[in-house]
Protein backbone atom coordinates (compact mmCIF):
# COMPACT_ATOMS: atom_id res chain seq x y z
CA UNK A 1 0.00 0.00 0.00
CA UNK A 2 2.83 2.36 0.92
CA UNK A 3 4.66 1.64 -2.33
CA UNK A 4 1.56 2.33 -4.37
CA UNK A 5 0.95 5.65 -2.61
CA UNK A 6 4.60 6.64 -3.06
CA UNK A 7 4.55 6.07 -6.81
CA UNK A 8 1.29 8.01 -7.06
CA UNK A 9 2.93 10.83 -5.12
CA UNK A 10 5.99 10.98 -7.36
CA UNK A 11 3.77 11.54 -10.37
CA UNK A 12 2.44 14.74 -8.83
CA UNK A 13 5.49 15.83 -6.81
CA UNK A 14 5.27 19.29 -8.37
CA UNK A 15 2.88 20.40 -5.68
CA UNK A 16 3.81 17.84 -3.03
CA UNK A 17 0.36 18.31 -1.62
CA UNK A 18 -0.67 14.78 -2.56
CA UNK A 19 2.27 13.43 -0.55
CA UNK A 20 1.32 15.57 2.44
CA UNK A 21 -2.27 14.37 2.34
CA UNK A 22 -1.18 10.75 1.80
CA UNK A 23 1.20 10.71 4.77
CA UNK A 24 -1.37 12.40 7.01
CA UNK A 25 -4.00 9.85 5.96
CA UNK A 26 -1.57 7.01 6.61
CA UNK A 27 -0.80 8.44 10.05
CA UNK A 28 -4.49 8.74 10.83
CA UNK A 29 -4.97 5.11 9.75
CA UNK A 30 -2.19 3.96 12.06
CA UNK A 31 -3.66 5.91 15.00
CA UNK A 32 -7.10 4.48 14.28
CA UNK A 33 -5.98 0.85 14.01
CA UNK A 34 -3.49 0.89 16.88
CA UNK A 35 -5.49 3.10 19.19
CA UNK A 36 -9.18 2.80 18.49
CA UNK A 37 -10.33 -0.34 16.61
CA UNK A 38 -12.25 -2.47 19.09
CA UNK A 39 -11.47 -5.92 17.56
CA UNK A 40 -10.61 -8.16 20.53
CA UNK A 41 -7.08 -9.11 19.47
CA UNK A 42 -6.08 -5.50 18.76
CA UNK A 43 -7.77 -4.25 21.90
CA UNK A 44 -6.00 -6.76 24.13
CA UNK A 45 -2.60 -6.22 22.55
CA UNK A 46 -2.82 -2.44 22.76
CA UNK A 47 -4.80 -2.31 26.03
CA UNK A 48 -2.19 -0.84 28.35
CA UNK A 49 -1.01 1.70 25.77
CA UNK A 50 -4.54 2.85 25.02
CA UNK A 51 -5.09 3.57 28.71
CA UNK A 52 -1.69 5.22 29.18
CA UNK A 53 -2.20 7.38 26.09
CA UNK A 54 -5.62 8.55 27.22
CA UNK A 55 -7.66 6.92 24.44
CA UNK A 56 -11.18 5.75 25.27
CA UNK A 57 -10.44 2.04 25.74
CA UNK A 58 -13.51 0.02 26.71
Amino acid at each position, binding site marked *: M*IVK*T*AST*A*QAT*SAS*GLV*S*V*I*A*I*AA*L*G*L*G*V*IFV*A*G*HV*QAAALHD*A*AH*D*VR*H*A*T*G*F*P*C*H
Partner: protein
Amino acid sequence: MFTRLLTSALFAGAAAGLIIALVQLFFVQPVLLHAELYEGGDLVHFGTESTASATPELPGFDAVRDGLSIIFTMLIYSGYAMILVALMSLAESRGAAIDARTGLIWGVAGFVAVHLAPGFTLAPEVPGVAAADVYERQIWWFATVLTAAIAMWLIAFSRNWAGWGAAVVLLLAPHVIGAPEPEVFTGPVPTEIGALFASRALGTGLAAWVMLGAFAGFFWSRESETTGQAQTV
Protein backbone atom coordinates in the same frame (compact mmCIF):
# COMPACT_ATOMS: atom_id res chain seq x y z
CA MET B 1 8.55 14.03 -1.14
CA PHE B 2 6.52 11.14 0.25
CA THR B 3 9.68 9.20 1.11
CA ARG B 4 11.15 12.22 2.91
CA LEU B 5 7.98 12.69 4.89
CA LEU B 6 7.77 9.00 5.74
CA THR B 7 11.46 8.72 6.71
CA SER B 8 11.35 11.74 9.02
CA ALA B 9 8.10 10.57 10.60
CA LEU B 10 9.27 7.00 11.19
CA PHE B 11 12.59 8.08 12.72
CA ALA B 12 10.90 10.62 14.99
CA GLY B 13 8.01 8.34 15.93
CA ALA B 14 10.15 5.30 16.62
CA ALA B 15 12.63 7.27 18.75
CA ALA B 16 10.05 9.18 20.78
CA GLY B 17 7.81 6.10 21.01
CA LEU B 18 10.57 3.83 22.29
CA ILE B 19 11.74 6.30 24.94
CA ILE B 20 8.24 7.10 26.15
CA ALA B 21 7.25 3.41 26.18
CA LEU B 22 10.04 2.75 28.67
CA VAL B 23 9.05 5.81 30.73
CA GLN B 24 5.43 4.58 30.73
CA LEU B 25 6.46 1.08 31.82
CA PHE B 26 8.21 2.63 34.81
CA PHE B 27 5.73 5.35 35.81
CA VAL B 28 2.31 4.49 34.35
CA GLN B 29 2.15 0.69 34.12
CA PRO B 30 2.49 0.07 37.91
CA VAL B 31 -0.48 2.40 38.54
CA LEU B 32 -2.50 0.54 35.89
CA LEU B 33 -1.60 -2.86 37.37
CA HIS B 34 -2.55 -1.59 40.83
CA ALA B 35 -5.94 -0.47 39.49
CA GLU B 36 -6.48 -3.86 37.86
CA LEU B 37 -6.23 -5.53 41.28
CA TYR B 38 -9.37 -3.54 42.22
CA GLU B 39 -10.98 -4.01 38.81
CA GLY B 40 -10.61 -7.79 39.12
CA GLY B 41 -11.70 -7.85 42.77
CA ASP B 42 -8.36 -8.99 44.23
CA LEU B 43 -8.39 -5.83 46.32
CA VAL B 44 -11.46 -4.11 47.74
CA HIS B 45 -11.61 -0.81 49.61
CA PHE B 46 -14.38 0.87 51.60
CA GLY B 47 -13.50 4.51 52.09
CA THR B 48 -12.29 5.28 55.58
CA GLU B 49 -12.80 1.65 56.67
CA SER B 50 -10.29 0.43 54.12
CA THR B 51 -7.81 -2.23 55.11
CA ALA B 52 -6.39 -2.73 51.62
CA SER B 53 -2.67 -2.00 51.45
CA ALA B 54 -1.82 1.07 49.37
CA THR B 55 1.40 -0.64 48.27
CA PRO B 56 0.44 -4.19 47.29
CA GLU B 57 2.81 -6.52 45.49
CA LEU B 58 2.37 -5.92 41.75
CA PRO B 59 3.12 -8.24 38.85
CA GLY B 60 6.56 -7.39 37.45
CA PHE B 61 7.77 -7.03 33.87
CA ASP B 62 5.83 -9.27 31.48
CA ALA B 63 7.80 -9.82 28.27
CA VAL B 64 4.80 -10.40 25.99
CA ARG B 65 2.41 -7.86 27.48
CA ASP B 66 5.00 -5.10 27.95
CA GLY B 67 6.71 -5.96 24.66
CA LEU B 68 3.39 -5.40 22.87
CA SER B 69 3.02 -2.12 24.75
CA ILE B 70 6.42 -0.96 23.48
CA ILE B 71 5.54 -1.90 19.89
CA PHE B 72 2.14 -0.21 20.02
CA THR B 73 3.54 2.94 21.62
CA MET B 74 6.09 3.19 18.80
CA LEU B 75 3.30 2.60 16.27
CA ILE B 76 1.01 5.23 17.74
CA TYR B 77 3.73 7.87 17.95
CA SER B 78 4.83 7.03 14.39
CA GLY B 79 1.24 7.65 13.32
CA TYR B 80 1.21 10.97 15.16
CA ALA B 81 4.60 11.82 13.64
CA MET B 82 3.23 11.27 10.11
CA ILE B 83 0.49 13.81 10.71
CA LEU B 84 2.91 16.17 12.50
CA VAL B 85 5.51 16.09 9.71
CA ALA B 86 2.77 16.57 7.09
CA LEU B 87 1.61 19.71 8.90
CA MET B 88 5.21 20.88 9.42
CA SER B 89 5.96 20.61 5.70
CA LEU B 90 2.75 22.47 4.94
CA ALA B 91 3.74 25.26 7.35
CA GLU B 92 7.26 25.34 5.94
CA SER B 93 5.94 25.81 2.41
CA ARG B 94 4.08 28.84 3.80
CA GLY B 95 7.23 30.33 5.31
CA ALA B 96 7.52 28.82 8.80
CA ALA B 97 10.97 27.73 10.02
CA ILE B 98 11.08 24.03 10.97
CA ASP B 99 13.93 22.60 13.06
CA ALA B 100 14.44 20.82 16.37
CA ARG B 101 13.96 24.06 18.37
CA THR B 102 10.70 25.13 16.75
CA GLY B 103 9.72 21.45 16.85
CA LEU B 104 9.52 21.74 20.64
CA ILE B 105 6.64 24.23 20.29
CA TRP B 106 4.98 21.97 17.70
CA GLY B 107 5.27 19.18 20.26
CA VAL B 108 3.61 21.20 23.01
CA ALA B 109 0.80 22.16 20.59
CA GLY B 110 0.42 18.48 19.65
CA PHE B 111 0.18 17.54 23.32
CA VAL B 112 -2.56 20.12 23.84
CA ALA B 113 -4.44 18.80 20.81
CA VAL B 114 -4.38 15.06 21.47
CA HIS B 115 -3.88 14.74 25.24
CA LEU B 116 -4.84 17.87 27.16
CA ALA B 117 -7.91 18.89 25.14
CA PRO B 118 -9.72 15.52 25.23
CA GLY B 119 -8.37 14.82 28.74
CA PHE B 120 -9.84 18.08 30.06
CA THR B 121 -13.30 16.49 30.03
CA LEU B 122 -12.61 12.82 29.33
CA ALA B 123 -9.73 12.29 31.78
CA PRO B 124 -7.32 9.42 31.00
CA GLU B 125 -9.15 6.37 32.34
CA VAL B 126 -7.66 3.83 34.66
CA PRO B 127 -9.04 0.29 34.11
CA GLY B 128 -12.23 -0.27 36.09
CA VAL B 129 -13.71 3.23 35.97
CA ALA B 130 -17.32 3.76 34.96
CA ALA B 131 -17.59 5.20 31.45
CA ALA B 132 -20.15 5.76 28.73
CA ASP B 133 -20.31 3.72 25.51
CA VAL B 134 -16.83 3.43 23.99
CA TYR B 135 -17.92 4.31 20.43
CA GLU B 136 -19.61 7.52 21.55
CA ARG B 137 -16.52 8.49 23.54
CA GLN B 138 -14.28 7.74 20.53
CA ILE B 139 -16.39 10.02 18.33
CA TRP B 140 -16.15 12.76 20.95
CA TRP B 141 -12.41 12.13 21.28
CA PHE B 142 -11.75 12.45 17.54
CA ALA B 143 -13.96 15.54 17.25
CA THR B 144 -12.21 17.20 20.19
CA VAL B 145 -8.73 16.40 18.90
CA LEU B 146 -9.64 17.72 15.45
CA THR B 147 -11.10 21.00 16.74
CA ALA B 148 -8.18 21.50 19.15
CA ALA B 149 -5.65 20.82 16.38
CA ILE B 150 -7.33 23.36 14.11
CA ALA B 151 -7.37 25.81 17.03
CA MET B 152 -3.62 25.31 17.61
CA TRP B 153 -2.97 26.00 13.93
CA LEU B 154 -5.11 29.16 14.04
CA ILE B 155 -3.36 30.43 17.18
CA ALA B 156 0.04 29.86 15.56
CA PHE B 157 -0.59 31.11 12.04
CA SER B 158 -3.63 33.36 12.11
CA ARG B 159 -2.89 37.07 11.74
CA ASN B 160 -6.14 38.52 12.94
CA TRP B 161 -8.65 38.42 15.77
CA ALA B 162 -11.22 36.51 13.71
CA GLY B 163 -8.81 33.57 13.53
CA TRP B 164 -7.86 33.74 17.19
CA GLY B 165 -11.50 34.10 18.19
CA ALA B 166 -12.39 31.04 16.14
CA ALA B 167 -9.59 29.16 17.92
CA VAL B 168 -11.07 29.98 21.34
CA VAL B 169 -14.51 28.84 20.21
CA LEU B 170 -13.07 25.59 18.79
CA LEU B 171 -11.16 24.92 22.01
CA LEU B 172 -14.18 25.51 24.26
CA ALA B 173 -16.99 23.98 22.18
CA PRO B 174 -16.38 20.25 22.87
CA HIS B 175 -16.31 20.90 26.62
CA VAL B 176 -19.34 23.17 26.63
CA ILE B 177 -21.25 20.54 24.61
CA GLY B 178 -19.89 17.86 26.95
CA ALA B 179 -18.51 14.36 26.53
CA PRO B 180 -20.52 11.14 26.85
CA GLU B 181 -20.61 10.42 30.60
CA PRO B 182 -21.79 7.28 32.44
CA GLU B 183 -25.25 7.41 34.05
CA VAL B 184 -23.98 6.02 37.35
CA PHE B 185 -20.54 5.60 38.92
CA THR B 186 -19.63 1.97 39.46
CA GLY B 187 -15.83 2.13 39.59
CA PRO B 188 -14.24 -0.04 42.29
CA VAL B 189 -10.85 1.69 41.95
CA PRO B 190 -9.79 4.14 44.71
CA THR B 191 -9.83 7.77 43.63
CA GLU B 192 -6.17 8.09 44.69
CA ILE B 193 -5.16 5.61 41.97
CA GLY B 194 -7.40 7.18 39.34
CA ALA B 195 -5.98 10.65 40.01
CA LEU B 196 -2.38 9.45 39.97
CA PHE B 197 -3.02 7.59 36.71
CA ALA B 198 -4.48 10.66 35.01
CA SER B 199 -1.54 12.84 36.12
CA ARG B 200 1.02 10.28 35.01
CA ALA B 201 -0.70 9.71 31.66
CA LEU B 202 -0.80 13.46 30.94
CA GLY B 203 2.76 13.99 32.20
CA THR B 204 4.24 11.24 30.06
CA GLY B 205 2.08 12.51 27.17
CA LEU B 206 3.72 15.94 27.43
CA ALA B 207 7.19 14.40 27.59
CA ALA B 208 6.40 12.20 24.58
CA TRP B 209 5.11 15.09 22.47
CA VAL B 210 7.95 17.46 23.31
CA MET B 211 10.37 14.77 22.16
CA LEU B 212 8.24 13.90 19.13
CA GLY B 213 8.09 17.54 18.03
CA ALA B 214 11.83 18.09 18.47
CA PHE B 215 12.73 14.83 16.70
CA ALA B 216 10.27 15.47 13.87
CA GLY B 217 11.63 19.00 13.39
CA PHE B 218 15.20 17.71 13.47
CA PHE B 219 14.69 14.84 11.02
CA TRP B 220 12.51 16.90 8.70
CA SER B 221 15.02 19.77 8.47
CA ARG B 222 17.85 17.25 7.98
CA GLU B 223 15.94 15.43 5.23
CA SER B 224 15.20 18.78 3.56
CA GLU B 225 18.89 19.76 3.66
CA THR B 226 20.01 16.47 2.17
CA THR B 227 17.50 16.75 -0.65
CA GLY B 228 18.42 20.39 -1.23
CA GLN B 229 22.11 19.53 -1.61
CA ALA B 230 21.31 16.64 -3.89
CA GLN B 231 19.29 18.91 -6.12
CA THR B 232 21.98 21.62 -6.39
CA VAL B 233 24.70 19.09 -7.30
